[in-house]
């Protein structure tokens, strides 16, 4: 099998690896680099358990080849905490009991981080739609959504106080009830 040599930066560390040309980034992270925080729940982009950030963009590591990561900056759940200091989302997930089995948790954390980096004041609906690609079978999502909303509220408090935005539910092109 044709092997590809890939140079990347992962969680701030310059990292090189070789992988088969048709190997996913997820397999490369897990099996070549020992970064098993991202999980494979489906391998088809339907569950979000393998969520990572690539050049700041939220993606499923199972839907990207390892070879495509050449020159990319990759962030995984392993890079979220600052040493022993948890990221606020990690702490809130614990405070809100937003995990039961915990296998979807790395994906949710990375996805939620990506949301809050773009929008520090999401509505419940915005949180729910942003996280729709992350499946959780244990919690019914209730405590996860609360943890994300609570983190956002704390992060807003920590930065400069802003008047609350008037938010309208986004209809987009979805047809539901």
């Amino acid at each position, binding site marked *: 099998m044709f092997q590809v040599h890939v140079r990347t930066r992962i969680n701030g560390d310059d990292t090189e690896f070789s992988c088969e040309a048709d190997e996913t980034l997820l397999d490369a992270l897990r099996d070549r680099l020992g970064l098993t925080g991202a999980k494979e729940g489906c391998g*088809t982009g339907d569950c979000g358990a393998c969520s990572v950030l690539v050049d700041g963009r939220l993606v499923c590591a199972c839907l990207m080849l390892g070879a495509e990561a050449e020159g990319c900056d990759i962030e995984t759940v392993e890079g979220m905490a600052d040493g022993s200091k948890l990221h606020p989302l990690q702490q809130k997930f614990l405070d809100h009991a937003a995990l*039961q089995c915990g296998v979807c948790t790395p994906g949710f954390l990375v996805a939620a981080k990506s949301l809050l980096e773009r929008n520090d004041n999401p509505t419940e609906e915005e949180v729910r739609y942003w996280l*729709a690609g992350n499946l959780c079978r244990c919690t019914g999502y209730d405590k996860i*959504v609360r943890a994300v909303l609570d983190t956002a509220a704390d992060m807003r408090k920590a930065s400069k106080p802003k008047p609350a935005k008037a938010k309208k539910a986004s209809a987009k092109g979805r047809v539901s009830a």
Partner: protein
Amino acid sequence: MNVQPDNKAMKRDFDIVGKRTPRPDGIDKVTGRARFGADMSMPGMLWGLVLRSPHAHAKIKRIDTSKAEKLNGVHAIVTSKDFGPCDDSLLDIRENVMAREKALYDGHAVAAVAAVSRSVARQALKLIKVDYQVLPHVTDVDEAMKPDAPVINDKLFTKGLDKTPKKPSNIAERFEFGHGEVEKGFKEADLVIERTFRTEATHQGYIEPHACVASMGADGRGEMWVCTQGHFMVRNTCAGLLGIDVSNLRVTASEIGGGFGGKTTVFIEPVALALSLKANRPVKMVMSREEVLRASGPTSSSSIDVKIGMKKDGTITAGDATLRYQGGAFPGSAVPYGAMACFAPYDLKNVRAIGWDVIANRPKQAAYRAPGAPMGAYAIESVIDELCRELKLDPIDVRLKNASSDGSKASYGPNFGVIGLKATLEAAKNHPHWKAKLGKNQGRGVACGFWFNFGGETSVSLNVNVDGTVGLSVGTPDIGGSRASIGNMAAEELGIPHDKVRCIIADTASLGYNDVTDGSRVTFASGMAAIQAARDAIGKLCERAAKIWGIPVDAVVWEKGHARPASPNAGKHEPLSLADIAAQAGATGGPIAGHCEINAEGAGVSFATHMVDSEVDPETGHVKILRYTVFQDAGKAVHPSYVEGQFQGGAVQGIGWALNEEYIYSKDGRLQNPGFLDYRIPVCSDLPMIDTVIVEVPNPGHPYGVRGVGETSIVPPLAAISNSVSDAAKVRMTRLPMSPPNVLKALGRI
């Protein structure tokens, strides 16, 4: 043994139990460090993959593995020939993990390879040639019961009939439960409603696929790393299938990414072990999502007839139900539990439930959260709802009027002990949700549900460390925070802070046997054992204090984490903390530990009432869940956050089952939707917040009053949602899932 109710303890104010403490595995799980099934690697490890039948039913004429064996990098190939004689009780499992004469369902394992990489293993699978003779198949439960249906197993003669039939069929067994005379009861009714309901098979849908690493050495000793609900079960089953002494197999439970009953048996684990045995190298196997859906253990599909009679005042005069469940290609569907549980919420004079266990060309069903109960409850609670509507009666009042209560005779036989059904109904009736206004195309439904809950074999070891901390080893995999709840109960009993107890899941070589994490038993049974182990340790701590003080041990009491003289007569001694005594353990007699090995009894049944508002789009048939409230008796909520989590998770799995989840088989008997794209579990944007009300009617069978909470929460939702949708759509729904095409059809729009 049974731990006697400790009423004083139940009424007391707890220091830790009932508090929302941090979970001990929390940091690992939010930082990605927690090691799940697929996260383990071993030196020299090979990758194992399974070749699966593309046919629903086929004779396996020949398997030619010669080409695959020659492929460079392939180290072992196994087929059914590698699974020799075993105990009768394991025969079905042996055949399910590797097909023998016939492939019995789409996805049935036929052969497996171990190779140096996944890509080599994939190539090898393609080089294995299997000659199939395709046979007629049947996947539908009602079709499978017909006299002219293809017979899947010609050695299957229906059990439970007055006379065993002479001809084999797909009907494995008939079950009957009940008491009184239903026909007499129907005559006393003012209104009798009879309906037939259908539900489709669903899957537990755990996010983590089955995964394991098996390593069998040349010395005949093996180790396994497995994501499972019961590593002792994995050990005993694998050892039994491969003829290994139980003591020669050491199994460690990984962190487990959900199970819900689906990981209470084995699939790839014995195969990995067989490959490792043959290759003499560790072998890792991880199922793909497609394999999980095609070839693990989904739940039954069902077809149910219900007839219930009611008086104008709401009294149920009789209930009769016939439940038909297909449980895949082997006997053992959950139909007896469905038949036992379906009428359990009601104290009925005349009741009968008949269950038919049916086989079909589908994967062998495994347990799924209160196995068999949700479908039965769906049918019965739907008819009760319809009776209430027709007779213009309040559905909660009617349920209260007929509800089972302390001492009433259960529909399945024995008398109930102390139960909390009425308390959940009262809580529902008094909740603002019940009175909230509904809009156009919106409806509300309620339903009750019951589950037995188990105790079972449990072993716990508690070690007092030199610094006053405590190591607590339990043998029930932690599937949703049980290390927190069990550790907290031990800390409560010892009178030390919760973070001084470290609770771990010990491997099979380090602890006595434990039944699997199932039957909502872990917080109840392992908790009870942890309390007993703590009491055992306290006894020893008191002995040491007595030695240190030079007084008799019965003059020492344990209070708030300290040994104290029982009375002034015992002399004046400064209380000794657990840490004080632990520091002197070596000098006063050696290590201090507590143990408990029990077959835990007194689990105490559990009831819930669910209330749900939905909105139906009459043009598309789309159902939106607007509001949901769970009322469930937890006995005593040890860790309320995780009790709420069980309530919410069960409700949402029920929402999926009710609305969109289903196994879809095509005419050729192949599964059409083996992926999360088309096996549609609820996503975050589908749902509202799930409100919870924890009702606490203490279980006298547990020292702290605990009842299992894990399973009951999935029993009422199918019915509650169907009742809600029926209210909104103004038409009685009798088929699950209530997917848009099915709803639109029920509405008569297509």
